């Protein structure tokens, strides 16, 4: 008998007999109906407590803000998506401004440029599928256009979050967006820059992922 069948048979022929499943009441996760402003305040407070940086901006002002942030860090290169409107907007913006870093488009399979991604990219910018106020989290669903490593390998990760897409809790976000209907190959909650406390409980940021997480909130 295969190991699979042996394990399943042992579980099925349980000597203690059949087990009854208890009811699960998720209402303990419910929160009051917060306004967008309240959610944003909560999000900002929570993500900043773990060294995330939040900048409130607008549809017309975010590129200016981004340019300032990247200049202050001396970033030379910025990784962008090819199709997404964020990437499109940045590409057309560079036509008549010079304060943005060199734009790199993630449009080739990783194998052909892995070393450059690890060593030469200063920052990456991605969209989000919303955020979670209670835990200060960004929801990221990487796609073919915005691949998984964009938000992981560059030392600075910049994420664009629409204030109107902030949910109160993870449960709320998952139910509202009906995640159970189908998940992408990879989905993420990102709540701050990479960190560790493995050396004597002392917090250090930027272990294996980004050292900085910068959120541009479009109000």
């Amino acid at each position: 008998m295969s190991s699979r069948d042996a394990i399943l048979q042992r579980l099925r022929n349980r000597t203690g007999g059949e087990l009854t499943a208890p009811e699960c009441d998720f209402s303990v996760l419910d929160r009051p109906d917060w306004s967008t402003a309240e959610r944003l305040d909560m999000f900002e407070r929570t993500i900043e407590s773990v060294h995330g940086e939040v900048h409130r901006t607008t549809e017309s002002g975010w590129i200016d803000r981004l340019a300032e942030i990247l200049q202050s860090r001396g970033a030379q290169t910025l990784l962008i998506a090819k199709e997404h409107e964020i990437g499109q907007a940045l590409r057309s913006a560079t036509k008549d401004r010079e304060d943005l870093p060199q734009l790199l488009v993630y449009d080739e399979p990783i194998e052909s440029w892995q070393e450059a991604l690890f060593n030469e990219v200063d920052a990456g910018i991605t969209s989000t599928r919303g955020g979670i106020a209670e835990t200060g989290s960004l929801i990221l669903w990487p796609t073919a256009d915005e691949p998984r490593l964009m938000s992981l390998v560059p030392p600075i990760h910049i994420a664009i979050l629409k204030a109107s897409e902030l949910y109160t809790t993870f449960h709320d976000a998952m139910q509202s967006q009906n995640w159970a209907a189908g998940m992408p190959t990879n989905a993420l909650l990102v709540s701050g820059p990479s960190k560790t406390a493995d050396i004597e409980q002392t917090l250090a940021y930027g272990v294996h992922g980004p050292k900085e997480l910068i959120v541009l909130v479009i109000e």
Partner: protein
Amino acid sequence: MSETTHGSSHHSAHHIDVKEFHPRARAAIHNPQVRQNFRKAMDGLMTKRKSAFEGWDLETLRDLGANIRMRALASLPDLLEQLEQKLTENGITVHWATDGDEACRIVRDICVARDAKTAIKGKSMVSEEMELNHYLEEQGIEALESDLGEYIVQLAEETPSHIIMPAIHKNTGEISQLLHDKTGTDLSNDVEYLTANARLQLREKFRNADVGISGVNFAVAETGTLCLVENEGNGRMTTTVPPCHIAVTGIEKVVPNLEDVTALLALLTRSATGQHITTYFNMISGPRKANEMDGPEEVHVVLVDNGRSTIYQDDELLDTLRCIRCGACMNHCPVYTRVGGHTYGTTYPGPIGKILMPHMVGLDEGRHLPTASSLCGACGEVCPVKIPIPDLLVRLRQESVDGDKLHPAKVRGHGAKRSSVEAMIWKGWSWMHAKPGLYRLGTSLGARFRKLQPGKIGAWTQYRTAPKLAPKTLHERMKERGQ
């Protein structure tokens, strides 16, 4: 059908003798550095957990956590089949292993088929159970830990002393010396510097690894999703950069619905380290698609039994399988805090280890584990899924002396601690207590001849003075008062 679903037997030279608990405990108690390191860490973790649950209806949340886990266990075989089907539909290959040895061989075979020579690992306690690193090295495959704590422990050629904070037994100075000796970094008490160096060392390893090996925190049956909880980003690197990802997980980690992970995640990170959430919650539902630019080409899941289906048979012991591996029971355990994780000599230390490991190593080898507890109850009070750990410790103590007639003994090696003299003494004790005349005679004789009482009573008087019978029995004193 195979009956032997117990711990791995290969490379047993690496095993620490679990039976030698007492000498290790003595050594740890007399090591001020170990005690200081654990005390400081556990105090910090207890405070953080408490503040992370402020404003929550914690009892109701823990009830929900327990119910979610019990609901999953109630239909475990069906859920595993559903999980297998969904994962397969998603393009993930599913493997089943009855024990650690078989799981190791499955991982090796995947590596061999890809001609893989190097593996980078994310944190996985199941892989510690399997002793996967040693096995792969014997097979000529380099297995490098990438979680900073695990990396430190691996460099020191040790095992984790805590399931969440593997290197918690070391202080900064000790780690600095270790990194200096093994990787040539400068001696420094600057944690940022030490961390930055580990980042540099491991980046190249991530880039060049042939496979990535990770654990799983929750496996969701309805969507075929593997969930990983982490802070460092090494888990994401491990599961995204190498061309092949192998996830190893215990069969009990499955939950029916995606919704279930919201409550379990809220409990897990707050209970473990007092965080609202970890930096990354990584949900993997498939390998790279044809049009995608990155991610592994192949994803494998190894579902490991290793004694779990044996625990599953018993109505009480079953509760052990609810565990979500937060480590809160360790953080709050007065014994763990004093003796440290290595004293137990088991993969899982502390209270959860004391109820889990006897099933894996047997009650003969693990005979001291259930007794390494003052039964203060702290572990049961903080458990996010309400595992009645103290009750299970008592149950295992009973089994270790075959004393429980109500439950036919289930655990391998039961009765290993049985002593016929002790059994006779207790039999006499219960016989005497059931007969009032005899009881009165016995206690009054005891009071009269109390000088003859032995001053040393085995282990009890090792750290305590022997209890003395009173000069008058309670019955005699009550009689005097009544007059």
